[in-house]
């Protein structure tokens, strides 16, 4: 883990009408850290992701990314700064092949700049990315229309779409939801590898077993507020977490 924080969230609050989706949540993320975010359904996890990536404007508070306040910036500007996110519902570009799905982020100004203003062999880049997330390189799968791919592939395509941006911070919004056990087992090492290569990751997840195995730190949300923030062991032993999950709430 390198030193220094990549992301500082200070007292972020978001109201939807009369409902507080996120109440004065603060946390920081170190470079190269893998932070897990858990919480029951409706606890504000996805809203938090939307706040960090510009899809929702916070009512108050700051989101400081690499020293700059990015709260309320347009999503494409946030992405151009190097924050990539997946969506909970895998919605690829259905009428395009998996391969062409990746051409779109690769066309962005950020990638062009990173690659020195020229594309080079962009096709190779796209196919390498697909291979990285577990598409079979020498098969027809990358060239099939996305609408005909199984759900597990679509989720991994989401991941590849993020990696195409060469992000500095990756936010995964329930990447494992809807994946089979074997697909999760296949995807987990990919995320671990990205993290050991130095990528900072925030992982919103319902699959606690897998998350606790790879996360450095876990934050628990309940009713939009931060309940606990600590090592996986601390979180597992916390009474507040047990109350949030096992009290009279449904397990998410």
């Amino acid at each position: 883990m390198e030193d220094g924080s990549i992301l500082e969230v200070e007292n972020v609050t978001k109201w939807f009408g009369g409902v507080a989706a996120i109440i004065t949540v603060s946390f920081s993320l170190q470079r190269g850290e893998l932070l897990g975010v858990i919480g029951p359904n409706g606890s504000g996890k996805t809203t938090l992701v939307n706040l960090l990536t510009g899809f929702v404007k916070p009512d108050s508070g700051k989101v400081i990314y690499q020293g700059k306040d990015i709260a309320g910036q347009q999503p494409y500007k946030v992405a151009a700064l190097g924050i990539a996110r997946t969506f909970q519902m895998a919605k690829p570009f259905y009428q395009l092949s998996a391969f062409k799905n990746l051409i779109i982020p690769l066309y962005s100004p950020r990638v062009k700049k990173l690659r020195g203003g020229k594309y080079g062999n962009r096709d190779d880049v796209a196919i390498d990315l697909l291979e990285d997330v577990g598409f079979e390189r020498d098969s027809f799968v990358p060239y099939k229309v996305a609408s005909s791919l199984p759900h597990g592939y679509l989720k991994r395509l989401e991941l590849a779409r993020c990696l195409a941006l060469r992000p500095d911070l990756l936010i995964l919004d329930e990447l494992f939801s809807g994946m089979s056990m074997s697909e999760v087992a296949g995807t987990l090492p990919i995320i671990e590898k990205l993290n050991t290569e130095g990528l900072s990751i925030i992982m919103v997840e319902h699959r606690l077993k897998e998350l606790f195995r790879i996360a450095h730190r876990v934050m628990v949300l309940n009713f939009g507020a931060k309940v606990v923030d600590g090592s996986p062991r601390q979180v597992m032993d916390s009474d507040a977490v047990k109350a949030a999950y096992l009290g009279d709430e449904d397990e998410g």
Partner: protein
Amino acid sequence: MRYRKERLDRGIKVRCDDVFALSSYREVLYLAMPKVLPVAILLIFPLLKGVVGLYYEKALVITCAISLLALSWDLMASVGLISLGQALFFGAGAYLTGYLNYAFKLSPILTIPLGTIGGALFSTFLLLPVLRLRGVYFAIVTLTLPLLLGRFIDTTKILGGGEGISGLSPLPNLWFELYVAIFAMLVCLFGFRRLINQDYGLVLQGIRDNDRAVMSGAINIYRFKVEAVFIAGLAGSFAGAFMTHYYQFVGIPAFAMDYSIVPLTAAVLGGPGTFAGSVIGAFILVPLSEALRGFGTLRVVFYSAILIICVVGLPEGIFHYMRRKYHQFERRREIG
């Protein structure tokens, strides 16, 4: 014994979908035919005045104008912008061209390009605030804009008011009319088809499928939408600019619903998303409507009935159907 239909791609289609591995003149013909044949027919058609008569030669010009509007509709639909108001482009181009010709006595060689670019700029500017809307909300605004402009001209009596501007310069001759219209339509058709398969076009299609994912791909979708509307506006305004000199008149009918609805119907009938479908649709609808003129008022009944049959029978669109039949053969196969 039960059967089921089995569809198989022709071998050459499988081999040539992306890679052009040509080995014989038959394969070259097979691949080139769908493009070369219609283009050849179009280019020869103006020469057949003695056979088809002046009436249908003139109908071809209108068909090309409607094709341009349908192409422009299809391009906007490719970005997920469903428009019910192609008449906005048509009218903007038409009025600007007419005014330039009337007020400054510019020749059509100048007014048509100026009207095309100016009309596209004007309509894009009008649509700027609503480009953030999606689906039916965008559609409603586009539906009202041309009606609003038409009524505005009518009541304020600017630009000729309800009577319009007549006595505009004619186009040089029939040859010019026919070939410019055909040429513009072909340029748009093949240009758009090429554009949509380029990286730029992939971004446009991405916005249609999932605009949030494109945004999170660090791409400013607003800019792409504006550019797409401008390009679509060029095609639509050219149709308006050209028809103004063709009719030597511009008036409120330039903003009429016909120019919104017929192109949309053509695109849906032909198969949206392919551009060729839009053109095929226009080339069915407009001549059909002319041919049915003999039925007098019953014309609309026949016209509507044919339309309903087509849309119910071929919901995928005529072009998709034709393409499938061309590239695949079907056979019955026993099961069980």
